[in-house]
């Protein structure tokens, strides 16, 4: 080897060491973030696993922490998600169809709608709580702090996410499908209803489930609209007062524990149940995406 190429080898050796150190540093950043997530899961599981029994799921909350359960909050959450879904699916999909298939984005009002949706996606969730309080619970609609108000508040909160994911699903349907349908004499609406929507449904469903998974853990807006903390009955209609899982968990976290009552395991058990529901929803979303994903 000539002196010249040795010099190059030496130089590239130190460069390689620097490269490696940098790469390791970047990897550690990622590792630290995921490590904290792992630590959190282990901590919650350790605190709550012993308390997460069938009795916990089927009992109402109680002053006696050994007897307390999460039933009312679990049903409250299920009702909330139902109302939320009934609201976000039609409105979200209709908005997405409008923006993707009909809107002329050189018009200022359509651009305004787009920027508005992007901004709404980043408005703090507690601000939606204020909106719900001022317009749904009190003020014009005066529904009171009931399931309907809570579900709609959460619906407005996740609507931007539904719209954005439904638009992506619709955009993924290739133009050739639309052109083929139109060439056979179908109108634009027939094309959308019979060709575009069926092809986009898996993507839309995935987006809806992920939005509900976000709504299910939202606490702040429900606190602001005045969800109850101690409820010993299951809701039977959308006009009933309610509590929800994150509200119940928050209540348990903030109660001071003493010798006879220890609230931390209760809160952790509630969190575990919430995480299990989240995991289920995410699994369904991933399964849907993989099962029905079409390669065009």
């Amino acid at each position, binding site marked *: 080897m000539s002196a010249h190429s040795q010099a190059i080898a030496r130089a590239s050796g130190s460069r390689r060491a620097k490269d490696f150190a940098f790469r390791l540093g970047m990897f550690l950043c990622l590792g630290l973030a995921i490590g*904290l997530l792992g630590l959190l899961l282990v901590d919650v599981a350790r605190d709550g696993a012993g308390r997460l029994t069938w009795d916990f799921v089927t009992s109402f909350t109680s002053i006696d922490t050994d007897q307390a359960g999460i039933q009312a909050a679990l049903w409250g959450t299920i009702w909330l998600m139902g109302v939320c879904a009934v609201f976000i699916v039609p*409105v979200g999909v*209709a908005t997405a169809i409008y923006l993707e298939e*009909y809107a002329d984005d050189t018009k200022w009002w359509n651009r305004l709608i787009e920027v508005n949706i992007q901004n709404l996606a980043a408005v703090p969730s507690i*601000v939606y*709580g204020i*909106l719900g309080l001022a317009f749904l619970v009190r003020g014009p609609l005066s529904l009171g702090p009931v399931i309907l108000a809570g579900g709609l508040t959460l619906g407005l909160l996740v*609507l931007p996410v539904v719209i954005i994911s439904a638009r992506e699903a619709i955009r993924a349907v290739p133009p050739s499908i639309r052109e083929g349908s139109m060439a056979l004499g179908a109108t634009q609406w027939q094309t959308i209803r019979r060709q575009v929507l069926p092809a986009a449904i898996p993507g839309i469903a995935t987006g809806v489930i992920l939005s509900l998974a976000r709504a299910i853990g939202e606490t*702040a807006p429900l606190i602001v609209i005045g969800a109850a903390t101690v409820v010993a009955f299951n809701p039977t209609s959308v006009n009933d007062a309610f509590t929800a899982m994150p509200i119940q968990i928050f209540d348990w976290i903030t109660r001071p524990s003493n010798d006879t009552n220890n609230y931390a395991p209760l809160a952790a058990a509630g*969190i575990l149940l919430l995480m299990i529901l989240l995991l289920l929803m995410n699994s369904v979303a991933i399964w849907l995406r993989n099962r029905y994903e079409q390669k065009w």
Partner: protein
Amino acid sequence: MIKGLLMLAALISILTTTGIVLSLIEETIVFLGDVGIGDFLFGTEWSPLFEPPSFGVLPLVTGTLLISLVAMLVATPLGLGAAIYLAEYARPGVRKTIKPILELLAGVPTIVFGYFALTFFTPEILRSLFSLDVAIFNGLVGGIIIGFLIIPTVASISEDSMSAVPQSLREGAFGLGAAKLQVTMRVVFPAALSGIVASLVLAMSRAVGETMVVVIASGLVPQWGANLGDAMETMTAFIATTAKGDIATGSTAYKTIFAVGMTLFVITLIMNLLSIRFVRKYRQVYE
């Protein structure tokens, strides 16, 4: 006809924004009429429910900004590091598995992070591991945990914008004899800068608007100072705790929620619009 119906649905999102602005403005104007805009914006004592009350919002604003600053100090290096690793170094298979795991950080409800911050991070990590002399409720833990929460925001938008940098730029740099590190830091990073800035601004906006972590772990004492080891109150925490009780419509407490909410909304709105603008910029250049 159908187009009209669909457009009606699209208008709901406009109505939402209008609703937010209207509901905030109405009560805020009444509130400012009572208190005076100078006393509200520049007063340094926030004790609206005491006698005599004091309505200076600055302690809440500085509390929010300090905690968000700590969050950004955590999220900027970690989020950008993760993004650089995923965009430039990780093999496609590794990226495909790790990215969803990282996104989980954003998917875990923030109340869970609040629980973790209060029952584990403050006592075990801050006090035991680092022997810091912090109160049970402190601003520091809120900032650090929110920092972790917003890592996916920083990482995923930054990674997108780095992946959008055309391969030809990298190849050109390699062809001139640059090492991988140089290509990453001197070519890809600057080329993706507008997306990176967008991700940081959006992350900051999320940090400012985050509620549950600070309500649970950072305490509820408005602090006109910069002591992160003590309890602090943010704008979001004030709103959440004040609205919790059955407050009467039209009472002072009721109006403060809207005035503080308005302040929060305006601050986050400015950041969101900035971020949307930066994202558009990088999309225009490369896509």
